[in-house]
């Protein structure tokens, strides 16, 4: 079809397209805000439960982050070496 018509379709597509992109992501903004509110409510309601699991998680993270960085470095290197040699 003639280029002019193509361009017309293009303009059409641009207007609609950017319109949808913005609508979609704008709605998503509010969806996420609602989501976060909901999450807050939920976690408050089962506060106790959360607390426990939170502690548990914290503990878990402790166990991980507790390891001194250099040890991890050494071990990582070793693991690398181990892999490159044993595989």
């Amino acid at each position, binding site marked *: 079809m003639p*280029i002019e018509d*193509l*361009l017309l*379709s*293009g*303009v059409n*597509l*641009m207007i*609609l*397209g*950017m319109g*949808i*992109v*913005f*609508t*979609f*992501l*704008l*709605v*998503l*903004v509010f*969806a*996420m*805000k609602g*989501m*976060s509110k*909901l*999450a*807050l409510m*939920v*976690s408050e309601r089962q506060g106790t439960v959360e607390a426990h699991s939170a502690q548990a*998680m914290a503990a878990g993270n402790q166990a991980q982050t507790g390891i001194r960085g250099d040890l991890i470095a050494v071990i990582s290197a070793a693991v690398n070496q181990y892999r490159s040699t044993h595989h």
Partner: protein
Amino acid sequence: MVEIGIEPLWLSTGIANLEWGQVLMMGVGGVLIYLAVVRKFEPLLLLPIGFGAILSNIPLAGIGGSDGLLGHIYHVGIETGVFPLLIFMGVGALTDFGALIAMPWTLLLGAAAQFGIFVTLLGALALNFVPGFDFTLADASAIAIIGGADGPTAIFLASRLAPDLLGAIAVAAYSYMALVPIIQPPIMRWLTTETERNVVMQQLRHVTKLEKVMFPFAVLLLCVIFLPSAAPLIGMLTFGNLLRESGVVERLSHAAQNEIINIVTIFLGLAVGSKLSADKFLTLDTLGILALGAFAFCIGTATGLLMGKIMYRVTGGKVNPLIGAAGVSAVPMAARVVNKVGLETNHHNFLLMHAMGPNVAGVIGSAVAAGILLAMVGG
């Protein structure tokens, strides 16, 4: 008896069959590998693509043909759209959307940056005024998605709308993603003021595990309601992210983040490379695509920054406009660039985490844009 002599022997050599186009394409493949290995341009993709280009241009071997290795891989993984979608699953499993959840408004930056896609679409169509160019609306759409700065999205859309241009589009997409550190900074400095770049943003709030688990469902839900044509991309992205955040399928999350994405990356790269044949790549179209791709990146960066400036005004100077440039995605390169440019003006201003929000928003944004193009043009 079987004819075995010097004559057939000579005819079975490469030099006797090598065409100039093939030599040139092998050169192109070599350049891509050089960029990958020496210049560190997206090596994970450009190295396999470059090598695939070399292999598929070897005369007589027919490695890229329908009976060749790369031909088989292309048929199974790209014609079907399976490979880019599996990569998207891996991206979802590797991405932490926490920064975005903490700053939902940065989604708008990811939206604004997609403007580059649609402007480029017009540009591609306008190029038809130049004799020798004849892009259809489908071609133009596939080319425009380069502005999405997202490899798998570009390959997926190109395999749907313009398979003949797939090679050039993939190469352009990954090359420019690698060039982000060179393309973006000047535009960023040109469009923002010293004061704006100086803005120190407040620290991100803590995001709960529950929010991170709910996020993929929120995104998928909107996709189902508004834009089902984007469902394959958004669906696999959110699936991968759920594997990651659910915390109950460590084995599967690990497989999606490692085995699957690594294996698929090798095959995807080689298969894309097999589309770099002289007759398809050494054309005026390719030059147009490369030009339009650079154009798309610049526009996307600019519109992202402008939206950043708007948010700067609206929030009374709480938002640093620079993070708008990360809206083009090109994760995590663009976010790093923002951080770098930010540090130039203020040595204590680390914008990396704030830039991650628009950065991942850009991934969703370009997937949405791809869905629109599929729905409007692909139908």
